[in-house]
């Protein structure tokens, strides 16, 4: 669950982190009014920023810096008509520009190798931090706080002094900056903990000419496993993401799959892939690709292979018109093969599926299951490799090309 910039900033502000004065605008007229109000307060330039849940919007032309309310209206009109990598722009965040002395970076994310959250600080702000980490690792300072007590002031001071010494142009009054960083880092850490953030990032973190630290951007991604702790946030997000046309920018097939409670990833190919178990389905996709086909999706129906679940899955996969045939890969375990076969046949009949189905399954009574499938006109296979070869062949014939 990714928050938009303005939502992330509101969460920051709620916990005491300074953000530039700003207003949300859903129309060009609102943007003009927002700019007028903000300029009256600050009398400076205004940034008009597209609110989309992906990075790289600046490069795509989704951010404009304007001098007047009139210009804000024109730029907002242009940006609100944009579609940034598939995400329609629903709103713009208008905020006052800052007098920038230095651009820093502060972020918190999961370090999988250490099984801990990591606080990352760098004096090289405003750039892609992964790139900085790769090309100039000496400009990155990291801290892995004890999860039961969080980052202590002295730990943050060590981190900050180390990173600021590496800065190309260390800010004036380093001690004061470090002092502000201590409380800011603790506020950001609290934000990450309270919101179950997988990523919580301020880039750039602006050190203003007046010596204040201000979050000029905000990125916040909430752990999907913890959404039950943040239902209010999820609802707010859903309201904001979907426009009058019902489009959210998220893949419509994936939106539908979530509604159906299925673990589904939409891909570009034409062979539907269903299996039980994430590793098994990943391998199913690999096998299809090895045989020269292109998977249309990843769909994991989880343990077992209940008939109603298989039916729901088939219906979902075939809702994508690109799909020419489906490969079902079931490890039966203690499930009976004949029961799985009956479930698949029933689903095929009820859904009136006339596209090729290839089923590879194991389990007790698997031979009887394969016989039932064959009698019903569904292609059974003993091995997954054989099944992949068959579905690639069958869909090539059906579509006229591979």
């Amino acid at each position, binding site marked *: 669950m990714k928050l938009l910039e303005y939502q992330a900033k509101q969460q920051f502000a709620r916990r005491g982190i300074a953000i530039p004065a700003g207003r949300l605008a859903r129309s060009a007229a609102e943007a003009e009014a927002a700019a007028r109000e903000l300029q009256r307060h600050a009398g400076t330039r205004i940034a008009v920023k597209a609110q989309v849940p992906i990075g790289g919007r600046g490069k795509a032309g989704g951010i404009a810096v304007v001098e007047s309310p009139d210009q804000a209206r024109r730029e907002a009109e242009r940006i609100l008509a944009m579609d940034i990598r598939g995400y329609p722009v629903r709103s713009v965040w208008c905020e006052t520009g800052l007098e920038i002395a230095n651009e820093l970076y502060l972020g918190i994310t*999961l370090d*999988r*190798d250490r*099984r*801990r*959250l990591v606080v990352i600080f760098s004096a090289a702000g405003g750039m892609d931090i*992964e790139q900085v980490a*790769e090309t100039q690792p000496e400009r990155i300072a990291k801290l892995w706080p*004890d*999860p*039961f007590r969080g980052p202590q002031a002295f730990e943050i001071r060590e981190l900050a002094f180390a990173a600021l010494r590496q800065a190309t142009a260390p800010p004036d009054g380093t001690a004061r900056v470090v002092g502000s960083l201590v409380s800011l880092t603790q506020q950001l850490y609290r934000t990450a*903990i309270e919101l*179950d953030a*997988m990523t919580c990032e301020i880039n750039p973190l602006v050190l203003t000419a007046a010596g204040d630290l201000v979050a000029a951007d905000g990125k916040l991604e909430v*752990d*999907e*496993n*913890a959404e*039950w*702790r943040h239902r209010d946030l999820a609802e707010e997000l859903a309201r904001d993401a979907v426009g009058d046309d019902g489009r959210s920018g998220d893949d419509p097939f994936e939106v539908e799959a979530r509604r159906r409670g299925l*673990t589904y*990833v939409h*891909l570009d190919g034409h062979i539907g892939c269903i*299996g*039980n*178990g*994430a*590793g*098994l*389905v*990943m*391998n199913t*996709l*690999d*096998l299809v*690709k*090895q045989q020269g086909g292109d*998977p249309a999706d*990843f769909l*994991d129906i989880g*343990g077992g292979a209940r008939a109603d679940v298989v039916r729901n899955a088939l219906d979902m996969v075939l809702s994508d018109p690109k799909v020419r045939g489906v490969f079902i890969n079931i*490890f039966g*375990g*203690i499930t009976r093969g004949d029961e799985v076969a009956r479930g698949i046949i029933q689903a095929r009949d009820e859904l009136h599926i006339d596209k090729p189905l290839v089923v590879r399954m*194991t389990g*007790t009574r698997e031979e009887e299951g394969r016989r039932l499938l064959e009698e019903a006109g569904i292609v059974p296979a003993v*091995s*997954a*490799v054989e099944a992949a070869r068959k579905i690639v062949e069958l869909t090539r014939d059906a579509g006229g090309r591979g």
Partner: protein
Amino acid sequence: MSILVDKATRVVVQGITGREGSFHTEQMIAYGTRVVAGVVPGKGGTTHLDAPVFDTVAEAVSETGADAAFIIVPPPFAADAIMETAAAGIALAVCVTEGIPVHDMVRARAFVETTPTRLIGPNCPGVLTAGECKIGFIPNHVARPGRVGIVARSGTLTYEVIQGLSQAGFGQTTAVGIGGDPVLGLSFTEVLRLFAGDPATAAVVMVGEIGGSDEENAAEQVLAGGFDKPVVAFISGRTAPPGKRMGHAGAIISGNKGSAQSKVDALTAAGASIADTIEDVVRLTGERMGATAAR
């Protein structure tokens, strides 16, 4: 010999009275696992599946001498259950729960590190020593005793590998499903070290997948340092697109981290044979072990 569990292992089940908990406990008992207790807060004093049920793990340990735990409780309570197990001094905790919030697991994992407890999982199929004991979901009929050790992230692929090896006549020592979450207990590195010290294990099959760098770390820290048993590795998700979570919470290529190619490269460099299919896993295992040593 085997690793982690054997005939003597005494298991307490946390969440024994739940639908899933009951079902899998029955399967475990049918396999021969000694289930000595259950724990469900508020149901202490009752009996379920012939096992005494306690309110707390500490009580279960002092009353029954349980030394391993099967944790099958819903996600909101699972991290706490893991910590309770570790605090009670249990040697091995196996948590199968899927969907535990990452921050909860970061805390639970840090807590477990302060104790001698080994944690397997969460979001894993569990552990099985062929013919002796199983804790978790691995189907009862697939394994047979032998000399191959298995360590895998994915559940169904673990079962597939066990079944493929068994059908070809290669039995197993212990199969360990470490799980598909980003924050886990035992990683490939630790399980491979355990296999290195187990004289009964003659070869190891490793089933990894995209996401994180546990496979690379194991290749560099264990295999490259003179691991004297043949290793066959299988990586799933080779064609998965970057940035997409493929079912498992941890199966995601983020930025330049977690690609299948980087894992395949690291494992190849460390001397593992790379299999493209389950059939390949079986064939390569046979080749690397030599026909007689295997059976």
